[in-house]
């Protein structure tokens, strides 16, 4: 199972084994990682699972789709070039070791 590491705004760091196909958001929320709200459950409807993808992984993670790109337009924290909605990043073996920094403000 691919590993993903979260840096929460409160300074905590959590590394989890993700189920293949689960999103970075789902993996965090189900295991109680603080900082990701994700009220819509992954429907790309709320923009409250905003993360910054570690530079080493931005290429392999890829770019936001059109809908996600539009949602990122209204995030509470600053949008940066490595901003993604974590509900739209599905975990797979190529993402093993992925590190994300959770945006400090989600709502």
């Amino acid at each position, binding site marked *: 199972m691919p590993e993903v590491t979260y840096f929460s705004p409160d300074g905590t760091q959590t590394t989890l084994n993700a189920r293949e196909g689960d999103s970075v958001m789902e993996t965090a929320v*189900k295991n109680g990682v603080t900082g990701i709200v994700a009220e819509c459950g992954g*429907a790309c409807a709320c923009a409250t699972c905003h993360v910054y993808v570690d530079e080493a992984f931005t290429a392999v993670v890829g770019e936001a789709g059109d809908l996600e790109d*539009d949602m990122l337009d*209204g995030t509470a924290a600053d949008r940066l070039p490595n901003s993604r909605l974590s509900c739209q990043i599905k975990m797979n073996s190529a993402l093993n070791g992925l590190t994300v920094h959770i945006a400090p403000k989600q709502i």
Partner: protein
Amino acid sequence: MDDRILIIGAGQAGMQIAISLREEGFAGEVTIVGDEACGPYQRPPLSKAYLAGIADIQSLELRAARFYTDKAIDIVTGETIVDVRFDAPGRGDTGMATAASGRIFEFDRLAITPGSTPRRLPIEGGDLAGVLYLRSLADADALKSRWTAAENLVVIGGGFIGLEVAAAARLAGKTVTVIEVADRLMARAVSPVTSEFYRGAHERRGTRVLLEAELVRLLGDAGEVTGVELVGAGQSGGEIIPADIVLVGIGVIARGELAELLGLETINGAIVVNSYAETSDPRIVAAGDAVLLPHPLGHYGQVRLESVQNAVDQAKVAARTLMGIREVHRAVPWFWSDQGDLKLQIAGLSTGFDQIVERGSQQSEKFSVLYYRDGRLLAIDAINDPIDYMAVRRALHAGAHIPAELAADSSIALKTLIVGGEA
């Protein structure tokens, strides 16, 4: 003495109360008891990704089992509470809830999050096999078990659930008819402008939409539904529409039975709470679909909101109230409905609007409708337009404003027009 808090109802609201109690530092016992077979799960995907086979059961669970163990949250499933009582207010308040199985749950503080149940179709043939509702995982599984073989789907009720299922059925190549008694779709949630767009959009995708349609009865053969008989549709009365599945989505009824047992104030079954999620007995809080709450943006009146957002935000307030933290519930209501490739996002409550501003083009199926009353921004319906949706949600959240006369120019980004508030 460590308090024991019992939460009756294992949905989104019940789970959030438990989590928020722990986040606020509550150290006593927390028990959630629910009547379904599994622990808390997401309902919105049942009519979307789960029905389409994209999401499985494991992906629906709201938290991993280990999470509840780590947080010392006791989840009890498959137990229906049939009786609940609280000693008279005063010294040594304790209460007791009894399940149908005879199991007893004692508590010092109580939260009720009973949710709602689909309104049943009161009509001849309503009990035929193949007449289905969609609220629970069990409902969704019943629908899925008939889904592949079904050719003709009739949806009764043109609301979110019905239209989401209709869109999924069209994508799966089925013949789909939506029957609505009102003169427009989603009449409780959106304005006529949005309703009319959706009628056209569903028709363009091959769904037949019948408005102001009156049902006579459901027809069956050997106990299985075979069709729907109508009056008032088209010119000829008594039309019969073939159906392998009749999906009924005509609204929900608040599950107020426990509240009534506890002597709490209810209106049409909905549990009346104040801005702190307190019921008429201040020892008991309530949250979620079954609750009638003061308008969460401080406007006049009470509302009952059926949404994830409301369940979560209200549950957080309820948890703080249980902890003795007084915090008025204030939240921007928001909703979404994915109907095939049409993404509807709503922020705010448009009730009572006297002006609308339309942006974008309906023809491109990407537009938004802003609602105003006395010049004050109330809400937005955004269709495939997350940028406008997010701008209005942020403005409402900050208590800010977007002037109607400026918003009408679609070439200007709404977020650049936000004035005032704390933003």
